[in-house]
């Protein structure tokens, strides 16, 4: 879907500021990718290049096999900019309907998007009157007015309350299920880990690592939660590390088959299992490891 071939982007009068340095990567269609990294790492520059807002100083960017602007002229894309804004005098309803028509949709698409993001009570309000969180929801609604193969969201959780963060997670999952390509730039590593398949870790304009946030390898450790302390758990899981309250313990096992057998045995003994969670190394830790002292 998106290809970067040895892309370098320099800014400034004498092009001294290197925003991206020799970046090569390929984002396949139908996946959810995140772009993470410290401030100034080049996240927004990478998105701007992918959408053809800016041109590479060196190298090439292809979107759908062609220069991004050509691709967008034919297909469009969903896009939420960082610090999203619209003219303050526009009303939410007019803005969404106008942008929906401009995107090739209908007024009904705008109403649906407004419903999806809980904007119905605010349709008559002016953009300038909205809180940061509401404005962000308008931004997300306008990005998803009509179905697009490519959706790019720059800091989508900024200003959103916890409820809307969770809803956004579901919406991104829906987009993945529909086969859309989604790219998210975010500082929120926890959120990235929940929604993305892979994360491009940028630092100083270079790709430090492409992290697999949904590793295909099954985890080797699990956290098991019981409804109440159960003494006989140690019979089934002799090497378990039990937490002080006696209801949560961590086990390391060769694979899910062994886990299933042991959990079944535990239940047979009378243990009440509430949850079994796979344990992977959190993205935050992996980013910290990759960045080393710079983190």
């Amino acid at each position, binding site marked *: 879907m998106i290809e970067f071939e040895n892309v370098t982007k320099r800014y400034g009068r004498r092009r001294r500021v290197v925003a991206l340095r020799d970046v090569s990567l390929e984002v396949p269609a139908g996946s959810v990718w995140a772009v993470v990294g410290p401030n100034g790492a080049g996240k927004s520059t990478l998105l*701007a290049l992918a*959408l*053809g*807002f*800016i*041109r590479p100083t060196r190298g090439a960017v292809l979107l759908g096999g062609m220069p991004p*602007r050509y691709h*967008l*002229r*034919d*297909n*469009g*894309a*969903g*896009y939420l*900019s960082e*610090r*999203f*804004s*619209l*003219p303050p*005098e*526009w009303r939410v309803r*007019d*803005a969404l*309907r*106008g*942008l929906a*028509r*401009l*995107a*090739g949709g209908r007024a009904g698409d705008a109403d649906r998007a407004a419903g999806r993001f809980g904007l119905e009570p605010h349709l008559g309000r002016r953009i300038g009157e909205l809180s940061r969180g509401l404005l962000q929801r308008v931004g997300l609604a*306008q990005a998803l007015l009509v179905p697009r193969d490519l959706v*790019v969201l720059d800091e989508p959780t900024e200003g959103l309350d916890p409820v809307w963060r969770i809803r956004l997670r579901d919406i991104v999952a829906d987009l993945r299920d529909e086969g859309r390509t989604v790219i998210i730039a975010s500082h929120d590593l926890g959120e990235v880990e929940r929604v993305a398949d892979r994360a491009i870790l940028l630092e100083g304009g270079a790709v430090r690592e492409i992290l697999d946030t949904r590793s295909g390898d099954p985890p080797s450790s699990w956290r098991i939660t019981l409804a109440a302390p159960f003494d006989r758990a140690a019979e089934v899981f002799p090497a378990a590390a039990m937490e002080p309250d006696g209801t949560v313990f961590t086990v390391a096992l060769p694979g899910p088959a062994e886990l299933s057998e042991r959990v079944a045995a535990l239940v047979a003994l009378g243990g009440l299992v509430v949850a079994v969670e796979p344990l992977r190394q959190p993205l935050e830790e992996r980013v910290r490891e990759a960045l080393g002292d710079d983190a």
Partner: protein
Amino acid sequence: MRGIASFLRLTLRSRARRVAGLIAFGLLFLAAGATARIFTGDEHGHIEMDQIFALGGTTLVSALLLMGWLVGRFPLIAAVVLMAGIFSDDRARGHARIYAVLPHSPVVLYGARFLLLASLAFLMSALLLPMFDIIVLGVLPHATVFALIGGQVIVFGTLTALLSTFTRADAWAALFVGVTGIVWDGLRRVELVAALPPAFRQAVSVVLPPQGALARIETAFASLQPVPWDAVLYVSLYGALLLVIAGAILARREI
């Protein structure tokens, strides 16, 4: 087309305050002209300068003359005010990126916006100037007034639009270039620039707004002569050239 129409409706909403300001500005001229006529108009409806002088001295006479000069520049003012930030505001505020991911060419979008705003400037001027003439002079203006309005809207509208692809100070830059053009044209007429190399004079005259052509249209209007079509054509070609350059820049401009 439905999409473009929506874009233009939103553009009108963004420009509503400026339009209201221009209408208020225009009404001020009409009110001043009507007041002058009520107090000093003769039996033919003409305003008598002697009476104005008797009422308010040179201050009032100067004010009315300035007003007459200014109302003649209303199309220029309307074009610059409406076009200011036509592209640069969107670029600075990030809205250009929102439009850039829509399946439309930016040249078509901003071209349509230019046409809308230019038509609006023309329409407002085409109402104000004849009304002012009717109130102050008591006569319907010559049809050349529409050439005068069109000329100013084309020259200063396209100039502001072109500058908007470079800078947020597009309106001020357009006014600066416009005033430079007026000064240059004045110097050229009185042959104060005759000492400069002819190629340089020619180049400056081509680059600056076609003040000579605009002045010819204005003279034709003031002296009730027919429309100087060659001047109108020159002005139109100048505007078309600036639009083509602006379009070419827009198509490649980083946003």
